[in-house]
């Protein structure tokens, strides 16, 4: 028989709400000085959504410019700055804060803790990220420096040497880029250390590592990956600044430096970074799919092993971004193989999610719709990834619109879709109110269609030889109609995101009251009040299985009998 000291009763917050007792200024002050993991998580989330809108706005200009050939909507200088800022923003100011938004808000609640291991380091990490972001965008004002040249960085988010040398990039725009990533990078390291420490030392009684929710597992592995990969990026930014201001020659090809040294530094960070960004999407799928299929996750140990496996293999594949830089045939063959190997643990994950749905009673509420679309899109992205790992074919596809289509299938089709799923899923927990389902469905279907119109079409542009990073193209290339279709799809996605933003705000103000456990879910965060009180749980929870609330709801058939 299950131990009935489980949280549900003991952990509910019975103190009356204290809204309306503080002034507006006091409320603001309480957010600025907060060290509470939930408030910091929400601040990370707001930062990410704000920059998602900024980065999305930037790409609208790009798509208008490319909608027709020989367009003069924006100048090449502005275009180059926009795609550099779009890429940098989406990776460092949207994707990375999202990792910490989810980890901060969810991990203490899921492992039955009252806060992160290092609350003040947590706040420090957030503010480093926020000010790093501000610093990057300040380049629009300060980047011209004393030279009167371009303001924002325009060297692509790869910032390949030697284009970043002062000979080719005068002014301060490149400095803003390098230093902003240095600052946000330290914020990231602080956050990653905090997550690992929290998961290792703050778990409640009974929660062994193999009972930890998969969500938490994935973000812990993610943090380990971050600790390894942010370091070379930080080192490379320091070397770049030394080159630019103190006369060193790491990347200075005119003085014997090596351009491809930067490539190695950048991609040993840059490739695992893709997995860093996608792990929260895996984490969300691993919570949403079981709950909406009404079944335990299939193959929990295999899922944990596959996550660690992906992280491990992802550290040995970076040079598949460099098949065209002239490596030896043996080098190309090695990185083709290591890249293909990633497909094995990734396949295991997809199969386990599908097996979780198999035999279930699937409820297609908005979170599950986004997660189902994610499964199709992630499958496609994995297969186009296999195509790109075939080094000779990569010589054709690399740097083309096919690659853009491939990685947006991951970054949007997997990550953004599941972030939306996660927001619809946990919004009731964080605010106490449900999001509007009808608007949610409009949001989903419009975004789904816009996504496919845009990114499915981009694959074909790549097949037809269109390279990325070009601000215009000749009319006789046969790319004009496809580009128009891509731009129309972008517009549809923009409308969908506006619906989402409206839904977010209107549901916050007048959504129906959610209650503690609106989805009939099984992890610890649903056992406390919505929104959770500052201390999360009034009494320390005790768990006996991976699904503590299942055990409480089904005392006749608890999970711990089978684990």
């Amino acid at each position: 028989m299950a131990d009935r000291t489980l949280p549900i009763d003991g952990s509910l917050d019975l103190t009356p709400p204290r809204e309306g007792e503080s002034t507006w200024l006091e409320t603001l002050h309480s957010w600025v000085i907060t060290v509470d993991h939930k408030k910091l998580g929400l601040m990370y989330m707001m930062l990410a959504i704000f920059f998602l809108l900024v980065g999305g706005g930037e790409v609208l200009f790009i798509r208008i410019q490319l909608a027709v050939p020989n367009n003069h909507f924006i100048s090449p200088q502005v275009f180059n700055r926009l795609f550099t800022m779009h890429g940098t923003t989406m990776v460092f100011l949207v994707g990375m804060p999202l990792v910490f938004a989810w980890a901060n808000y969810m991990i203490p609640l899921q492992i039955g803790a009252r806060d992160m291991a290092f609350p003040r380091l947590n706040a420090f990490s957030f503010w480093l990220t926020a000010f790093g972001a501000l610093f990057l965008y300040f380049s629009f004002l300060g980047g011209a420096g004393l030279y009167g040249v371009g303001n924002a960085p325009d060297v692509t988010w790869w910032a390949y040497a030697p284009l970043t040398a002062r000979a080719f990039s005068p002014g301060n725009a490149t400095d803003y880029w390098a230093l902003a990533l240095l600052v946000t990078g330290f914020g990231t390291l602080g956050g990653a250390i905090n997550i690992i420490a929290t998961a290792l030392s703050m778990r409640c009684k009974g929660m062994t590592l193999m009972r930890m929710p998969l969500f938490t597992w994935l973000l812990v592995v993610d943090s380990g990956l971050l600790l390894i990969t942010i370091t070379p990026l930080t080192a490379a930014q320091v070397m770049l600044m030394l080159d630019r201001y103190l006369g060193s020659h790491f990347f200075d090809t005119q003085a014997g430096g090596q351009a491809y040294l930067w490539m190695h530094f950048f991609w040993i960070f840059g490739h695992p970074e893709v997995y860093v960004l996608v792990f929260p999407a895996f984490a969300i799928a691993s919570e949403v799919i079981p709950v909406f299929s009404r079944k335990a996750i299939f193959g929990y140990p295999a899922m944990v092993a596959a996550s660690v496996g992906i992280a491990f293999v992802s550290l040995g594949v970076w040079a598949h971004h460099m098949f065209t830089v002239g490596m030896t045939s043996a080098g190309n063959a090695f990185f083709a193989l290591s890249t293909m190997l990633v497909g094995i643990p990734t396949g295991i994950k997809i199969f386990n999610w599908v097996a979780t749905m198999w035999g279930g009673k699937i409820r297609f509420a908005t979170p599950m719709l986004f997660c189902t679309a994610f499964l199709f899109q992630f499958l496609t992205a994995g297969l186009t990834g296999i195509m790109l790992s075939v080094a000779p074919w990569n010589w054709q596809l690399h740097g083309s619109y096919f690659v853009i289509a491939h990685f947006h299938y991951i970054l949007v089709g997997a990550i953004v879709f599941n972030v939306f799923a996660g927001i619809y899923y946990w919004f009731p927990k964080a605010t106490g109110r449900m999001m509007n389902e009808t608007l949610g469905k409009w949001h989903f279907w419009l975004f789904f269609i816009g996504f496919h119109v845009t990114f499915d079409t981009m694959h074909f542009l790549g097949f037809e030889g269109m390279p990325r990073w070009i601000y215009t193209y000749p009319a006789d290339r046969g790319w004009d109609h496809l580009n128009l279709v891509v731009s129309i799809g972008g517009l549809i996605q923009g409308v969908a995101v506006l619906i989402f933003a409206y839904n977010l705000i209107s549901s916050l103000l007048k959504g129906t009251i959610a209650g503690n456990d609106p989805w009939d879910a099984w992890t610890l965060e649903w056992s406390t009040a919505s929104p959770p009180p500052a201390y999360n749980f009034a009494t320390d929870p005790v768990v006996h299985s991976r699904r503590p609330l299942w055990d409480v709801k089904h005392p006749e058939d608890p999970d711990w009998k089978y684990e």
Partner: protein
Amino acid sequence: MMLPEWLRVGRIAGFVFLLAMFLSSYAFAEGPQSTPSIFAPTSTPAIDIHHLSLFVLEITGAIFVVVASLLTYVIIRFRAGNAEDDREPAQIYGSNQVELAWTVIPVLIVVVLFLTTARVIFAIQDAPMPQAALDVTVIGHQFWWEYRYPKQGLVVANELHVPLSDAKQPTPTHLKLLSADADHSFWVPQLMGKIDLIPNHPNEMWINPLTSGLYVGQCAQFCGVQHANMLLRVYVDTPEQFAAWVNNQAKPGMQDPSVAEGRRVFETEACMNCHTVQGTAATGRFGPDLTHLMSRDTLASGEIPNTRDNLRQWIKSPDSFKPGALMPAMQLSDSQLDQVTTYLETLK
């Protein structure tokens, strides 16, 4: 029957989707004029890559069909009904046999894919070059291409001429890839995949074109403001055409006394600091060699047709075609512009 709410939204959305698909099918129906498609290869490495890509497409396509069908089946079959049946389904926690199966099958697929891939990598990268191969050095500049033919002693710009190869007696072209400034990438999809031009890191590639004609492409690694207009044009000539072309390019620049005014402008107004005209005092290295400018079809690295009007406008204001190009506007008077254009027009 009343449709569930998500389906009603889905139906309206379905119309939008069909409309979008209709639009994109219209896009496919339009006949492109010179699309550098990777699926229309005319030269050996590109043909080999094309065959490999079809094989990979078959395998990945099959995986997609199997997994996507399974997923679709699950979505339809296991949707919760509307019945007031709130019993939970049977809980299944996993199965080692099943996990093993879907680990081993992908491993086998990876082995097949890898061996196929490796064979093509080694076949292309380690292919020995026959004696008859033509050597060309490609030098990437912001934002134009320089081609040097060391054995023929030629230096030309922006339009590469190579001989047609014969399957029986191949005369491939061996390209050595260098950069004068930032990173560039040489990509003419119908001939070969791209290889980067990286300063301090000489690269090489080869092409073995089997169909004559003009093939277009462009720089595929971001190299600065005008990366988009760093276009590539490769002319695959029959052996006779190629010999005639080499013969013409090897001549020194035309010396026509009737355009002495224009030549004086060229040699005194700083043009010659960057441009070379063989056989004259102009020996600049920063810009394209102009000795046989009129033998080229295009100006500004393939961006505009080589006509008198375009040439004059280009000299007057390069930024009007290519904002951010490194050639400065020399502020010539109208008569100087006419004179220097007339002079350049004699460089055939």
